[in-house]
């Protein structure tokens, strides 16, 4: 048995069991017999195992340098270190879609285990089977990584050097796909809800999956930004590149949906809107793949084209048509239980969701605009960062204001007791902005600082007031603090909000106050810049199995030695600059080795980028993930009640 044969076998089994699962749920639906759902669950497990075999076979081929199949022959090299060999599986199109299929089959199986509803589970499970079948059929018939190579080469070209330059590239795609695939579960339940005409409960049933997917999308986007900062050597973390946008659009729509789903759960409102939003969010994950894998848009990390573009476009249209056709059919009978007052929590949540949807629209517009212009006028244009920044600044302020106000206002209607909190928040806003201006910050940065304080006061009030209330009723602050334990989910949400405010602050500062300079220095020469002394001590070369590196030893006063380097990979004529970053709480010192004296090694050209608060961006990402984990962690409420029943009373 060769890896190629094993892989083909695994894929065939996976397709077979997915079809079997689909047939079983159709039988369950037509015959109204729940036993077939149990059969489908088993088929889901077997389909997952089949895909796992294919995944394992491809890893087997990569780790044993088997070049007899297409994927390794094109994307692998014996010179890679082991971790790169392992991660090469998702370094190119075929493998990354196989990984996607693997995660989709895993989610289908796990989501199936949790489906209890007699009416909706056949449809929801069927939708998931259909989605996974799409990916599996693609991997088996269109972009099969196990296609035999007639004359296997002795060695291959290896994966894109940019992907080997940092370990984060082994993690980022998995996080991203866990997020993308996670959105398929709420989508499948929404389809089931529309087919079975049960418009309310699907939201609470899929809330866990939605937040799970949201957490991974968030982590993946930040991880990608960090990778870009650490590897690409231009000193930034976000470039409004089409691939970045492709991951941002589903995140924006999922964020909008997280908030309106909460309103539907609590107040049975926005039902039609939620059906539309979940369809759009799931479609956006496929749209992103279409954009970046079809060659329609050129980008740093777009894989080579092929027949995948039109196929994904077709799948995108099927998702949108199915979602909106079903919604159109039932929309006349989907009714909300009541109406919305703007000045209430649900009113502001709706406004906040609108802000996120508009942001998504702006990103789609900016990403597709070059295509539209070229189609109509023939001019080749690109939409630069100024466009996105211009629109995201006001939208970002709206988001910051709403995310503080929403949780402070109670459901249904504003009460007088919240007015004191609002007054304190307004004071913080004015004070923060004023102090910022007095310190000489730009208006935009000052306003962001003001809104950061605005959020901080809101969160402080949200945390303190229930504790104070409990303490008043039960006597003693400690009992009040005990209340924290049972509403961990709420505090997880607050933590995420705090982290978003911190992100906004870090973005405002890092985008507004940035120093970017270049200088050619002799070895041993010092450079006074940005309040530091930069000295080049030595220039040396290091040979590794898969690359050759030129490294400069540069001392930054007070921060120690940094080692910016140029990496030369065998398969590429261009060297890849690997920057060296000294993180501090205030500013980052980011050094890139731009060029060096190739004849006598007497000089180097360095680029220095000094950016404030970037470290806080990564810190806020960690806080967001922590907050999400707090929300998702299985509830220990029952245990708590047993121990301290008075807290619940």
């Amino acid at each position: 048995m060769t890896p190629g044969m094993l892989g083909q076998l695994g894929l065939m089994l996976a397709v077979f069991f997915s079809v079997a699962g689909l047939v079983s749920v159709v039988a369950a639906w037509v015959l109204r017999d729940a036993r077939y759902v149990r059969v489908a669950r088993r088929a889901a497990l077997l389909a997952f195992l089949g895909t796992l075999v294919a995944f394992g076979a491809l890893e087997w081929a990569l780790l044993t340098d088997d070049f007899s199949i297409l994927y390794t022959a094109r994307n692998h090299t014996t010179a890679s270190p082991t971790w790169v060999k392992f991660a090469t599986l998702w370094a190119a199109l075929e493998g990354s879609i196989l990984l996607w299929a693997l995660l989709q089959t895993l989610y289908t199986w796990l989501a199936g285990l949790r489906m209890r509803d007699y009416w909706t589970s056949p449809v929801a499970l069927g939708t998931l089977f259909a989605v996974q079948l799409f990916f599996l059929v693609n991997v088996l018939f269109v972009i099969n990584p196990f296609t035999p190579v007639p004359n296997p080469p002795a060695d291959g070209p290896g994966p894109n050097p940019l992907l080997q330059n940092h370990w984060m590239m082994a993690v980022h795609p998995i996080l991203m796909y866990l997020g993308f695939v996670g959105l398929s579960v709420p989508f499948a339940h929404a389809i089931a809800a529309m087919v079975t005409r049960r418009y309310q409960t699907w939201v609470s049933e899929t809330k866990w999956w939605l937040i799970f997917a949201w957490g991974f999308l968030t982590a993946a986007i930040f991880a990608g930004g960090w990778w870009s900062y650490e590897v690409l050597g231009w000193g930034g973390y976000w470039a409004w590149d089409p691939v970045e946008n492709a991951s941002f659009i589903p995140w924006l729509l999922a964020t909008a949906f997280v908030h309106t789903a909460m309103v539907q759960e609590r107040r049975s409102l926005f039902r039609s809107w939620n059906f539309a939003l979940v369809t759009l969010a799931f479609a956006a994950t496929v749209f992103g793949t279409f954009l970046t894998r079809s060659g329609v848009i050129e980008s740093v990390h777009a894989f080579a084209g092929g027949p995948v573009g039109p196929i994904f476009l077709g799948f995108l249209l099927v998702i949108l048509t199915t979602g909106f056709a079903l919604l159109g059919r039932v929309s006349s009978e989907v009714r909300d239980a009541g109406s919305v007052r703007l000045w209430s929590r649900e009113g502001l949540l709706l406004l906040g969701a609108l802000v996120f949807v508009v942001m998504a629209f702006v990103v789609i517009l900016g990403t597709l605009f070059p295509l539209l212009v070229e189609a109509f006028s023939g001019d080749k244009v690109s939409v630069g960062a100024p466009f996105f920044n211009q629109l995201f600044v006001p939208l970002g302020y709206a988001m910051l204001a709403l995310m503080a106000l929403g949780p402070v206002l109670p459901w249904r209607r504003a009460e007088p007791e919240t007015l004191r909190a609002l007054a304190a928040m307004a004071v913080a806003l004015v004070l923060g902005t004023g102090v910022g201006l007095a310190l000489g910050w730009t208006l935009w940065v000052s306003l962001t600082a003001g809104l950061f304080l605005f959020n901080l006061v809101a969160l402080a009030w949200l945390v303190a007031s229930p504790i104070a209330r409990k303490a008043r009723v039960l006597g003693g602050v400690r009992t009040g603090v005990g209340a924290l334990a049972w509403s961990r989910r709420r505090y997880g949400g607050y933590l995420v909000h705090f982290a978003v405010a911190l992100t906004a602050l870090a973005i405002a500062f890092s985008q507004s106050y940035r120093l970017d300079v270049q200088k050619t220095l002799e070895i041993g020469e010092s450079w006074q810049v940005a309040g530091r002394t930069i000295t080049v001590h030595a220039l040396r070369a290091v040979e590794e199995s898969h690359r050759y590196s030129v490294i400069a030893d540069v001392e930054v006063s007070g921060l120690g030695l940094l080692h910016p380097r140029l990496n030369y990979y065998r398969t590429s004529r261009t060297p890849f600059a690997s920057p060296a970053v000294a993180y501090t709480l205030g500013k980052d010192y980011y050094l890139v080795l731009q060029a060096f004296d190739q004849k006598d090694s007497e000089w180097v050209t360095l680029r220095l980028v000094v950016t404030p608060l970037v470290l806080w961006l990564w810190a806020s990402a960690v806080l967001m993930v922590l907050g999400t984990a707090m929300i998702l962690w299985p509830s220990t409420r029952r245990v708590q009640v047993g121990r301290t029943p008075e807290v619940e009373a």
Partner: protein
Amino acid sequence: MKLKYLVGFLIVMGAIAYLAFGGLGNSLVYYVLPSEYAENPARYEGKRIRLGGLVKEGTVRYDPKSLDLRFVVTDGVVDIPVEHKGTPPELFKDNQGVVVEGRFDGEVFRGENLLIKHSETYQAPPEGGYTPEEVRKLIEEAK
């Protein structure tokens, strides 16, 4: 009741559309070849553009001390002198496809951002040089 929401929604969308398209007009960066520029220089006056073409043979002057880089971009018909501050990328060589982002300053194009369009397989230019169509194709096909 419904009408109120509809009107509100339309106003919001109108404002966004206005902002978006107004903003787009100012922040679009046109992609131009030297001969396209020569046809109508007034159109690109003072605007940020991306100038594409080949590095003309024997025109590259670079001083690593001052980081001044000068070269001529050509598409086989029209030549445009470019001035840029900063290290040229490793693959910056004669007859290499480049895209320079920047603005025209009189006759000279001041580059702010230099992108190399390199195909991994180097080809010698044909006898008699490229035509603009060939140059455009070359640059677009390269990654």
